[in-house]
């Protein structure tokens, strides 16, 4: 089939279309199906390969299996404090309340979590969580979760369109969602879905950065689709840099080293052999963090009478500390710092608790983590920002358009705690699925229709890269974008650099218009990248614009020129990004933070 040829177009009718087959998408599909909706899942990769598969540490849920004192209130408080109070309180509350039952449900569907001595689901320690709270399976919890949901989806007979990419959403004249448009990766042929409810669960944006723990899928498709459909994004300036990514060899730079290494006793050292985290304990967390090595080490054995080691501060704090040490010239040979568990735990312990980390370093870096320290550095990991949704229904400003999981915003505020994402996927996936199904059943026969012109326009836009005269290679543009974002919108930001980034993105947008792809439409990665790049560019612009506007430092957003956290001004509002009127860029506005009711405020009074 040649590029210009239309090819046959498939058309399908559903009640609910879920875009994305990660934890959020699959949970939403299951919920929608259970609520009686005719549901389909559409995903870019094969079923079971979504990013959720890579999650390692665990699912945060206050089940109280290890610590009976743990409950949703404590979890709620930890989440809000981790997000520096910028979270949508209602989402944080729902999450903390419902996560335990969502985890238990996974077990009903066949998940095999690690057990406590009493036979209950075991829970482990993670940064920012007061109690050991993460339900886990070794260091491959995400795999367990996605496989369980995948098997459930298949068992229920939900239709799955895999290796099928959604490139456009359709709306009727009233502005309500009427369907979606995409292409099959395998044949390059187009496919049209008619559905009055679309749930976006497309994950994150990390591929716009050079050093990242994220895969090629993370091009911000859901963010961009929502914006183009008229929805808003919030908190886009907050990008989480995970403190511990691999730095060497170059081919795996950015690959995640799980936080469990620190939860299980690993410590951070600079090139002088100093355990430097003690120098970086912020006021906010002073009262609950150990200030001597003795106390920190004692915590692992006796958590009641000691405070936690500073290595287990929330991720933004640790990432910034590491960054400062490297900048000060105290880094490791390959430009990271040292993460040492070898000198602190026996080889048997390490191999049992961290099997995939052991394997990963052995296979990919020739490093035996039971004998030598690892070299690590910050890596782009997660985007807190995403589609602005209603906390209880997950519906965006566009009727019929829902967003869940990493591509939705609000739940994590300015910084996400480890383990809170997997819980987020389950809790809000279920809510979104249920509400979407309910909405559709309320519509009756009165469904929004897809306009044929919109379909034709979507098709034209999708094949555009084959038609263009020019000479830009999409791979080169992607490379330059990643470099710019890494250098200018990275972990430490500055006004002038952010302005430079915006200028660079403008230039890249121009170049993107000249992109050409070779070959034909059958499984053509060059073409796929060309289409994804449009999303990456607009999402990158959103991040840079919001980052430039927020003149303070908070959570995943650190400004060199505004190092203080400003509770009075910036602590009270979210930045909102929408598509601009001409549709070729984004615009910013501000919105006051939803106000927390008094009965929840009391949890924060003592601090």
């Amino acid at each position, binding site marked *: 089939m040649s590029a210009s040829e239309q090819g*046959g177009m*498939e058309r399908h009718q559903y009640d609910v279309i879920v875009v994305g087959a990660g934890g959020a998408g699959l949970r939403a599909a299951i919920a929608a199906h259970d609520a009686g909706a005719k549901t*389909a899942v559409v995903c870019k990769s*094969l079923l*079971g*390969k979504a*990013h959720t*598969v*890579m999650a390692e540490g665990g699912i945060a849920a206050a*089940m109280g299996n290890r610590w009976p004192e743990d409950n949703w209130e404590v979890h709620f408080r930890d989440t809000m404090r981790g997000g520096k109070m910028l979270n949508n309180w209602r989402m944080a509350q729902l999450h903390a309340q419902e996560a335990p*039952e969502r985890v*238990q449900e996974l*077990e*009903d569907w*066949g998940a*095999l979590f*690690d*057990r406590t001595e009493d*036979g*209950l*689901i075991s829970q482990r320690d993670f940064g920012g969580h007061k109690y050991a709270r993460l339900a886990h*399976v070794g260091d*491959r919890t995400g*795999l*367990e979760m996605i496989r369980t949901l995948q*098997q459930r989806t*298949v*068992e229920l*007979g939900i*239709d*799955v*369109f*895999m290796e099928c990419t959604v490139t456009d959403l359709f709306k009727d004249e009233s502005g309500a969602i009427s369907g979606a448009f995409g292409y*099959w990766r*395998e*044949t390059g*042929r187009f496919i049209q879905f008619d559905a009055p409810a679309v749930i976006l669960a497309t994950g994150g944006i990390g591929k716009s950065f050079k050093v990242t723990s994220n*895969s*090629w*899928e993370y091009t911000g498709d859901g963010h961009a689709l929502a914006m183009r459909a008229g929805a808003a994004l919030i908190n886009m300036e907050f990008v989480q840099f995970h403190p511990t990514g691999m730095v060497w*060899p*170059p*081919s*795996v730079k950015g*690959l*995640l080293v799980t936080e469990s290494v620190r939860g299980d006793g690993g410590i951070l050292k600079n090139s002088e052999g100093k355990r430097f985290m003690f120098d970086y304990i912020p006021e906010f967390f002073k009262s609950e963090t150990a200030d001597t090595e003795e106390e920190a080490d004692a915590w692992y054995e006796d958590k009641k009478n000691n405070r936690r080691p500073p290595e287990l501060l929330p991720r933004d704090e640790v990432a910034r500390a590491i960054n400062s040490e490297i900048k000060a010239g105290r880094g490791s040979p390959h430009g990271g710092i040292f993460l040492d568990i070898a000198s602190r735990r026996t080889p048997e312990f390490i191999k049992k608790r961290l099997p995939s980390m052991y394997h*990963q370093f052995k*296979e*990919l*870096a020739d490093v035996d983590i039971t004998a030598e320290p690892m070299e690590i550095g910050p890596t782009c990991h997660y985007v807190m920002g995403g589609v602005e949704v209603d906390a209880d229904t997950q519906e965006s400003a566009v009727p019929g358009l829902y967003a869940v999981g990493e591509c939705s915003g609000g739940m994590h505020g300015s910084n996400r705690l480890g383990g809170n994402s997997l819980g987020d996927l389950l809790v809000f996936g279920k809510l979104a699925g249920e509400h979407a199904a309910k909405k559709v059943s309320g519509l009756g026969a009165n469904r929004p229709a897809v306009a044929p012109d919109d379909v034709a326009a979507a098709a034209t836009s999708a094949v555009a890269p084959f038609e263009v005269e020019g000479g830009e290679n*999409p*791979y080169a543009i992607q490379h330059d974008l990643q470099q710019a974002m890494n250098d200018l919108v990275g972990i430490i930001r500055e006004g002038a650099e952010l302005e430079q980034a915006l200028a660079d993105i403008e230039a890249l947008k121009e170049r993107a218009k000249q992109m050409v*792809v*070779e070959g*034909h439409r*059958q*499984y*053509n*990665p060059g*073409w796929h990248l060309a289409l994804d790049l449009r999303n990456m560019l607009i999402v990158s612009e959103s991040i840079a614009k919001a980052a430039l506007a927020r003149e303070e430092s908070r959570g995943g957003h650190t400004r060199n020129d505004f190092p203080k956290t400003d509770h009075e001004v910036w602590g009270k509002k979210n930045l909102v990004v929408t598509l601009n009127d001409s549709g070729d860029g984004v615009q910013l506005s501000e919105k006051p933070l939803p106000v927390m009711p008094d009965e929840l405020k009391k949890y924060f009074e003592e601090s």
Partner: protein
Amino acid sequence: MGYRLKMKLWRGDKSGGELKDYEVDVSEGEVVLDAIHRVQAEQAGDLAVRWNCKAGKCGSCSAEINGKPRLMCMCRLSDFEEDETITVTPMRTFPVVRDLVTDVTFNYEKAAELPSFSPPPRDADGKRRMAQVDVERGQEFRKCIECFLCQNVCHVVRDHEDNKPAFAGPRFFIRYAELDMHPLDTNDRRELAQGAAGIGMCNITKCCTEVCPEGIKITDNAIIPMKERVVDKKYDPLVWLGSKIGIRNKDTESRVPAKQGKAGHIKRPAH
């Protein structure tokens, strides 16, 4: 420490194809997938290759490297001599789509036919209790990243297309074993394992175990134990005698035979 690597990559589709020569700069610590990405970025933008995590966790990048089924992202260039030509082809058991990408739908169909977990009600407090030693065997199998390398190397289907309808393959034998060993499951899957899944086709020649990137002992810990469980039901004189005189295996007596699931919900493009 960089050098110029010589590669032969299979380019083509259903209608035919060939091994094409490429040369690409590579550096220390890189894996085969890095080299292929560089070819893609610099010389052949439309080179089809499937991958996601580049960390050996998602099982997308399965291919055959110098004839051996492996993950491209976990195959280090330092395993080869610098002057050695590395040949990469798609998996040879599944229908080829394009270049290094194959259509692995077969595996998803087999997954759908497999009856899933069927638990009893929860304990009174809404939780479930299982001992760590009882879940460990199943956990080994749940490490599976569904790379389908075992399905690819298994000669039962690799060398005999006509066996595909009657054979679930090693990836799903471990799933049968996982469920049959699950401390809470209420189903008996032995009939299905022998019948619909065709475990008798396997002649335990262990290639699946040899290629599994997760190091799962597929043959020793799943297939053979499943075969033994089938023997319990069908061929063991003592078990038969025992059941005649009323000695029953408590673990199995309360279980009900599982029914085969239905395939067809995984949608693929029309050709």
